Every structure is written in C-alpha cells, then in structure tokens.
C-alpha cells in the first residue's frame, strides 16, 4: 500500500509501481506517476513548508504549476541540489530526496514563526519605513539579517554538473497548452498537413480533463480521449508533441521560448541526457490554449495546511487516487467546488458541509450534492479556520453576521472561481479586456499572429471549447498556408459546466486588522495589507503591487492577482477596469539559469583566440593575459622569476641586444582600390596622398566628435593598396567604422576593405641586434638603412615564405615587424628565435612591451586616452594634416570646448622618490592641503617601474598639463601623499637616436 490516504480503485495509476522517497529524512512509499505532492498527501502529509515572511506553516494549495506554498529542495547529490521546486510539479522517482525550506530547527517547530506573532510590526511597506537609519546599518546589519531570515530556498554552492541543450524550431502552428482545447486545435491544424508543435507543461496531456470526471468525448472519458488523441498526433510526421514543456516567454514576431524538462523525473538520468532543453520556436501562427486557474477564497487563516483549491483535491482523487482528508469541508462561491465534493463523497470521504457564499444558486451539481446527502449552507461564509500545523475546523457564520458555528474538518476545499490564464497573451503585447458580466480579464486586442481558445479566452463549457479550438486550429493552419482540413471534429458526449465566482475578500477577511486572510501566499500578503496600501496613498495597481509585493513572488500572482486587484478597487471605490491589471512578464514559471545558458559556459562561454605562436610561448612557460578574446603572452619567467624580475630582464635585453615579441593580435585591414588614398584621407587625420609606396606613417583615426578612436601604423604597399594596422581591441570596431563611412557617406569611392587580422602572423624584432637577427633569413629585400629606412615596408621572402617586412618601432629601438601568412607564423618565429639565440635575444611579453613604449612616451589608445581626448590633448597635433579640408572628426575637433584652454593634456610624471611607482588611475591634485573633497586636476594613465631608466615613470592626463612642466603636483593615496614632477612624455633616448642605433 502506498499511503493510508490512497483510495483503492480511485485514480489512474492503474498498475502501481512503488517508488520510495524521503521528505525531511523520513522515508515514505509512493507510486510511479505520482507527483511529490500526491505521494505526500497519500501518506497524510500536508505540512510541507514555512512561509516567506511570517514563517507560517503551509501545505499544498494546488495540484499544478500555480503552486505558491509547497516549495521544496530536491537533492540528488551535493552539487545537484535544486531549491524552490514546486512539489506539485515534481514527478516522483524511486529514491527521490526532498527537504522543506525556510525553517529552523524543524518544519513543525520553527523559531522564525515568532514573526507571525510579531506580525503587527511587519505590515506592508515595513522594510521601507523601518530600516531607514542609521544609514550605514542598512548595508552592514539590516539587509544581511533580513536576507537570512526571509526568503525561501538556499542556492546551491557548487557548479552545476548537469548539461543543458538548446534547439531552434520553426512551425506553421504552435499550440501552447495540451488540454481539451489545445488537443482539438492541434488535431485540426495537423490534419491539414501543416507543421504543428503541441506543448504542455504536464507529463501527460489532458489539462483539466485530469479531474473532470464528468467529461466524455468521442465515446471515451475525457482523459482517455486526450491520451488517444495525443498518441494519434505523435504518429503524424508533421507534428511534434512536447510534454513536460513550459512555454515561459512570448516574444516579438511569434518567437516563443519553451523549456522541456528532460530528466528531472528520472531516477538515473545518465550522462547522455540533458537535464533540460531550451526550445526557441518561430511559429507562423500561435494558438494559446493555456486554460484557467482556480482562485482561493480570501478568509481568516485560509493558509492552514489542508486548505486547498477544490480542483486540486479533485485532481488528487481522480488522477492519483488520493483523498486529501477524511472529513472535508467546502467553501465556495462557484459550482466547481460542488463537483469536488461529489467526487470525494462518492469515493467514501465524508463531506462535513458545503458553505456557499451565494444566496440561492441552482444547478445540476447542487441538486446532485443534495441528493448525496451533503449538508449545504447558502449565504454563509467561513470566517476563520482552526488548527495550526493542519486545519482542524471551519467557523461558519451567515455572511451578513449572526451566530457562529464551528465544524470540525481535516481539509477545506475552496473555489472563488476561475481566472483565465492570459499570461502568454499579455506577454505577446496583446491587451486584455474586462468582461463585467463574468468578472474576468480576457484577450481583447491582439498584437501578434495568435489566437486564444477555450478557458484562457473566457469560453465556458467543453463543447463550446472544442468547437472554438478546432475551428481556430484549422484557420491557423490555413493562414499559415496549409490546405483545408480533412479530419473530423471531436464530438463531446458529456461535459460539466460551472457558473462564475467572486473576486476579492470574502466576509471572513475581516476589517479586523489582526486577521490574516491571505491573498498572496508566497509573499505573505493579506487583504489587510492591500487595504492599507490604498489607505497610505497608493492609487495605481502598479504601486499597490510594489508596496505590498502582491503577485511579485515566483508564482507571479497566478492565484492572487485578481483578488488583490478587486480588494484595491473596492477600497478605492472604483470599478476594476479603471484600476487596471498589472502587466504579465516572462517567465511564466521560473526558468533555470542552466537552460538559458545551455552549452555556453566555461570554455564555451566566449571564443578564445590564440595566435599562431601561442604553442611556442606556452612551451616556453609564458604567463598569458586576456586582451579581449585574445590570449597574449604577458611575460616569460625564467628560473622562478616573478613578474617584476622577468619584465625588468626583458626590457633591459631589448635595449641591449634584441627581443622577439608576438604582435599577431594587432588588427589588420587591407584598404585597396583606385580611391584607397582618398578614403584614407577621409578616415585618418594624416595626409596620405603623398605617402610614397614602400613608406609607412603613424595614423590617427577620430570619431566625428573629434576624439581619438584608434591609431596604428599604416604601410603603403602600392598606389592603390594600404596595409592598415589597428589596436588589438579596436580591430572590429575600426572595420565597422570604415565600412560605415564607405557604404553610406562615401559610396562614390572605389575601395574594398578586407580584414586580415587572422591572415598575418606578426613577429616584432626590436633592439640594436634586430637587423642582424633577421637579415640572414630574408631574401629579396635590401636591409640597409638607405634601402629600408625607419618607417618603411618591403615585400619579399623570409625563410622562403612571403613576407611584408616593416621597419618600425614600438620600443624606440631599431625595429622590424615581420608579417608572414599565419600558417607559417610559428616556423618563422622559431627560425628567428634560433638566430636570436646567437645574439642573446629574449622573448618578451605584453608587459615589457608596455614599459618600453611608455619609456618612449608612445600612447596606447584606450589606456592613455579614454574617448574624451583629442589629438591636441595627446600631443599629437603633428599627425593632423593642416591643409586638409575634410576628414572624419575635422569639425568635431574644432568645437569650442575642444579648443578651450585648460583641457587635460597628456604629460609625463616623475615621482620625487624614484622608487615609488604610482597607481594607474590615481587622482592628481595641485594642493594636497585643501579641504576634502579636493579639486582633482587629472589622473595617472600609465605607470611602471623602468629598469632602463632606473626609476619609476608615468603618463598622466593633467589639466593644462603642458603649461605645468617642472611643476610639483600631488597624488593623495590612502597611506600618504605622493609628490610628483610634471615632465615631458619621453623618458628614454629623448633624441630618438636609437631608432637607427
């Protein structure tokens, strides 16, 4: 036997396979096919959680995705620990281990429940009003304490070992929801031959047919028909049927996100299966068949374990064969609770009484209940529930006041009516309309190619639902281009029909301020809180929502929104449509980070780019740094050196003999065409027309606003061909910038742009011995200073492979940059390395490169400039063509603010104490004795220890910097003020003689 409350012969788990599971360490029997909720209820367990704020004992409210209370932690192992799983959705497997949350030391005795007693302190807006001072205490005391005490589950603390997959899909008709409406729509669409996807969040299709025992279609009971129809759909080649799949987001142009739970229900999923699969579906037409969600009654202590939605009790009985109690009470304003009472009564459960808030309702279910001998009380209200860890009684009173009567019960089934699930419709940007007669928000104005059918459209009754859905499915397929349907519409033989219900607080919700009549269970929001929000001045429902947090929990107010709205409207004295409904947002139910991230984690999160020479550097023990997506050799430690020792050695060696540096990451763009020079004139500040082929020039690129955007050395290979280099990080945006102007502003120019960053490996050989190292390997290029002067480029061969050999320097030493096709990069590097060894050359990394260029005052765009620096600010006026009449940035550069006096200019800084190295980003002041906050006149952009200079060096942007040469400025730091002297930007070889040394 799988639980004392399992009723023999009831339910559909016909061939029971038992599954043992544990809850809070205790072992229970269950049946495969159960949810965790149904299995616990079969064992008489109702108490499963503590509430968010007041730590009140909570049980199951529902049997589905709308569950606000029964959130548990499912633990497969130390890393696979999932908090806040709805027990009503989690399918049972043998060995499942679940734990309750938000309680200490135990579920039945929770110290945090003191919050319930002290609840007058914790009314709506409590946190906003109370923890205001002292200000610092919020961060250090209040927030951490509140965070620890409030909240639900605890996030796992280990990396998720599961994997998640993702798929894209396209279809003609996407049907969301697999109840009677969804299945009928899918059948109609599928029979036309259209490509159809049908998805439902449950393990089995059928929706409300799971509990509607009175439904019969095509000669079968409703649920049986649903299974047969789904099986038929699965067999069709043009149909994909997805169970356990929740449509969580409806985005622009019929783009819908769905998550399929692939293995959370399996005992041993195995390594091959993903845990979840994200489906991104683009549909020509969408049919929304998302059903409706039952609302609870709002009365005092309506949250006691054992009090649940009538449809939930019916589902547990009719589908799982579980009685939710032995002596149940019913509180309703709607017929559907009668059907639950009737089903339970027929299964042998005592129904103590039905309490109906309506005065004199009539109908077949009422007659049937009466015929079964169930006591029915019209015009009465349940004004409070007794019991604490489990409901023990309900106190009944005529709704306009009068004598009270307490009836002992062990469960209360309630129904205030049904709320159409317009979540996805609203997400599609459709506008809902309020139907005053039925008191429901239903789809009003559509914004996308979709249609709502059945209960989510406010359509009542199974026949009307299937008529509507079948017609809509056929039309959706036709609109998507399919032929006419050739199937037959399902025929409804018998169905149930229910009348409306009520919105807002029932009489038992008090005006009494100590009464807790819950509207939103998950966020502990009561009717009183909503009234209070209105009294405190909230008028818009959006403000009421944020002030009370009604509907803001992970269940997104599926059961609470309409009640909250109705109470606010009543308190405001306004009709509901004037108060308005809050907007629904994705996701419909919580979505794991894993399913969104998919495989894009760890090394697959972002591409890693490596140069052709990377393996060599790795073998040499280089330490790498990330530069954008590139891995660059940072420094090459030898014999236990730290970064400082390695960089000092590398810097000295380059100036003494030579160094090899992998510059392959430099952006490279080939600018080619009859108008190439004209184009370069427009994109760079420098003049290019007169640059002779075979020569190079340092170019500056501005944005239209006159600020430096990028820089780099450009070689002219032929009258119509430029080899442009960009900064490592700037390559893609420079290419985009060039393409933009070429395609849209200067389309008359005959020019082609090609990115060649990855085609060339670049080996910089710098230092007095650089020519000696390269020359023996070069063919066809005269390496003499006369034939190949500084800033020139030649094409020839090196090691037998084609090269573009640049004579240029980013170190201030005689230097070359050897460009070879990337495939030959490592081979040529190794050959140069072998030659270099004869001269004592070193390999150096990006850190030494930075120090060497700073010693020479060469700027790095993005480090010494920040998007607000003009060529003049950077001391680069010499690179701006004075005679030019147009280039990008020419007008921006002349703006009044950009030519004003006192702008920040790049200068050098020398600390008074040569051993002190400034911090990059440190602020500079003129007077260290001024009051705080001090006037900051600039900041340090680059700062290094220079072994070659025997002291620290720095570059800085300082207001009016070039007029301050020799001035003493100050850099205040936490442990003292550093005195600095303003200098020129060149710290080494000021005359530049070493370029030919």
């Amino acid at each position, binding site marked *: 036997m799988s639980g004392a409350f399992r009723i023999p012969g009831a339910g559909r788990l016909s061939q029971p396979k038992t599954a043992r599971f544990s809850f809070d360490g205790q072992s229970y029997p269950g049946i495969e096919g159960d949810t965790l909720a149904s299995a616990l209820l079969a064992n008489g367990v109702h108490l499963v959680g503590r509430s968010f704020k007041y730590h009140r004992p909570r049980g199951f409210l529902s049997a589905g995705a709308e569950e606000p209370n029964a959130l548990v932690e499912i633990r497969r192992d130390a890393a696979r620990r999932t908090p806040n799983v709805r027990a009503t959705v989690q399918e049972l497997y043998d060995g499942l281990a679940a734990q309750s949350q938000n309680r200490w030391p135990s579920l039945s005795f929770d110290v945090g429940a003191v919050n319930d007693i002290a609840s007058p302190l914790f009314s709506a807006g409590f946190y906003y009003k109370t923890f205001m001072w002292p200000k610092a205490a919020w961060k250090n005391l209040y927030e951490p304490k509140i965070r620890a005490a409030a909240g639900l589950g605890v996030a796992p603390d280990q990396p998720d070992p599961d994997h998640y997959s993702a798929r894209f899909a396209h279809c003609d008709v996407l049907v969301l929801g697999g109840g009677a409406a969804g299945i009928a729509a899918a059948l109609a669409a599928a029979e036309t031959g259209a490509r159809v996807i049908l998805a439902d969040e449950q393990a089995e299709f059928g929706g409300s047919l799971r509990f509607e025992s009175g439904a019969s279609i095509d000669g079968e009971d409703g649920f049986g028909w649903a299974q047969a129809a789904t099986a038929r759909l699965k067999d069709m080649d043009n149909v994909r049927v997805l169970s356990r799949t929740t449509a969580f987001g409806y985005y622009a142009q019929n783009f819908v996100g769905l998550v399929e739970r692939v293995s959370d229900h399996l005992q041993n999923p195995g390594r091959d299966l993903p845990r979840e699969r994200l489906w991104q579906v683009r549909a020509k037409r969408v049919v929304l068949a998302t059903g409706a969600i039952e609302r609870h009654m709002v009365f005092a202590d309506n949250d006691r374990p054992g009090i649940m939605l009538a449809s939930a009790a019916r589902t547990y009985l009719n589908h799982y064969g579980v009685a939710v109690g032995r002596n149940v009470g019913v509180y309703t304003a709607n017929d559907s609770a009668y059907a639950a009472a009737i089903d339970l009564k027929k299964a042998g459960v005592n129904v103590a009484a039905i309490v109906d808030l309506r005065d004199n309702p009539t109908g077949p279910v009422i007659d049937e209940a009466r015929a079964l001998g169930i006591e029915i009380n019209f015009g009465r209200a349940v004004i409070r529930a007794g019991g604490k860890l489990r409901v023990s009684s309900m106190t009944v009173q005529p709704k306009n006041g009068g004598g009270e009567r307490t009836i002992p019960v062990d469960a209360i089934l309630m129904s205030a009516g049904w709320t159409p699930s317009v979540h996805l419709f609203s997400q599609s940007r459709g506008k809902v309309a309020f139907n005053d007669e039925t008191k429901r928000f239903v789809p009003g104005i559509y914004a996308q190619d979709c249609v709502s059918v059945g209960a989510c459209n406010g359509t009542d009754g199974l026949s009307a639902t299937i008529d509507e859905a079948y017609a809509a499915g056929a039309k959706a397929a036709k609109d998507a281009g399919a032929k006419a349907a050739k199937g037959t519409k399902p025929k409804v033989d018998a169905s149930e029909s229910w009348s409306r219900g009520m919105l807002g607080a029932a009489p038992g919700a008090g005006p009494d301020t100590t009464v807790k009549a819950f509207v939103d269970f998950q966020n502990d929001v009561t009717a009183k809180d909503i009234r209070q929000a209105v009294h405190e001045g909230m008028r818009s429902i959006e403000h009421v929502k944020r002030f009370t947090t009604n509907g803001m929990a992970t269940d997104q107010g599926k059961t609470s929104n309409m009640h909250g709205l109705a109470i606010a409207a009543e308190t405001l004295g306004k009709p509901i449509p004037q108060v308005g409904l809050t907007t629904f947002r994705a996701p419909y139910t919580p979505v794991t980070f894993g399913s969104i991230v998919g495989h894009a984690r760890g090394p697959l999160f972002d591409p890693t780019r490596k140069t052709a020479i990377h393996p060599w550097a790795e073998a040499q023990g280089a330490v790498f740094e990330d530069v954008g997506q590139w891995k660059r050799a940072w420094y090459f430690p030898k014999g236990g050196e730290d970064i400082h020792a390695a960089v000092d050695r590398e810097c000295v060696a380059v100036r003494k003999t030579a160094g090899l540096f992998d510059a392959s990451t430099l952006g490279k763009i080939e600018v080619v065409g009859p108008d190439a020079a004209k184009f370069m004139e427009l994109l760079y500040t420098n003049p290019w027309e007169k640059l002779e082929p075979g020569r190079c020039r340092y170019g500056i690129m501005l944005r239209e606003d006159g600020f430096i955007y990028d820089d780099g050395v450009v070689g002219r290979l032929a009258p119509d061909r430029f080899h442009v280099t960009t900064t490592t990080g700037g390559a893609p945006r420079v290419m985009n910038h060039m393409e933009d102007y070429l*395609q849209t502003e200067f389309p008359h120019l005959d020019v082609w742009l090609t990115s060649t960053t990855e085609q060339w490996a670049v080996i910089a050989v710098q230092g007095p011995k650089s020519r000696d190292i390269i020359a023996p390997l070069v063919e066809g290029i005269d390496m003499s200073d006369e034939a190949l002067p500084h800033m020139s480029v030649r094409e020839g061969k090196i090691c037998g492979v084609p090269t573009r050999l640049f004579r240029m320097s980013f170190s201030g030493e005689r230097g070359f940059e050897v460009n070879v096709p990337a495939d030959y990069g490592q081979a040529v590097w190794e050959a140069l390395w072998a030659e270099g060894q004869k001269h004592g050359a070193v390999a150096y990394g990006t850190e030494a490169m930075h120090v060497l260029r700073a010693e020479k005052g060469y700027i790095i765009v993005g480090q010494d400039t920040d998007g607000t620096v003009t060529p003049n600010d950077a001391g680069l006026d010499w690179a701006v063509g004075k005679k030019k009449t147009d280039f990008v940035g020419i007008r921006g550069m002349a703006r009044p603010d950009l030519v004003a006096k006192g702008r920040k200019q790049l200068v050098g800084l020398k600390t008074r104490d040569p051993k002190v190295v400034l911090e990059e980003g440190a602020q500079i002041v003129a007077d260290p004795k001024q009051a705080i906050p001090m006037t900051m006149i600039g900041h340090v952009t680059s700062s290094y220890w220079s072994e070659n200079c025997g002291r620290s060096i720095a570059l800085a942007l300082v207001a009016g910097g070039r007029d301050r040469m020799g001035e003493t400025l100050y850099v205040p730091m936490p442990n003292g003020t550093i005195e600095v002297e303003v200098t020129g930007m060149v710290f080494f070889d000021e005359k530049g003689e070493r370029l030919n040394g």
Partner: protein
Amino acid sequence: MLLIRCPYCEEERPELEFRNAGEAHIARSANIAGESDDDFEKFFFIRSNPKGIIHERWRHMHGCARFFNAVRDTVSDKFIITYKAGEPKPAKLPKISNEVVAK
C-alpha cells in the same frame, strides 16, 4: 527576437544577424569643416527619438555586412519596411497592423 528583412539578401533573417546603427537620413555635409556650431550640433548630437515611426540604419553584420535603412514602429517594435542605403525615405508606408479585436 525580431525578424528583419535585409533588402540586399532579400530575406527575413533573425535579429541576431543584425546591428542597429542609429537614426537614418542624417546627411553629413560635404563642407563639414565650414559648418556652424549650431549646424554641427544638429548633425551630430540631436536625434528625433520618436514614439512611433522611426527611420533607422541597420547593418546585416553576420550576413552580407551591408548597411541599410529600415522604418520601424518604436511602440509595437514592428518593421514596416526596409530599403537600401542611399534610397530616399519611402513616400508611402504600407499599412501593417494585425490588431484584431477578440469577440
């Protein structure tokens, strides 16, 4: 995710392939160096930011890499028409609205 029709590829492709490139039909003066401060301000800084119809530039970055123009409704996010760079603003916009009032 939006679907955008590239006027060069003549195909609707997902938004992931495209980059927005700001407002369209803002002409750079042939004599930009001679522009007044006011004119340069209008050209470089001032954008219409309308609620409703906007003419804007897009680039089919991960496709043909061409820049083109689009007319989009900033309220509904719907693309009304796309056309090639250099073409004038469409004189007449096709009416696209599939707003349907439910029963």
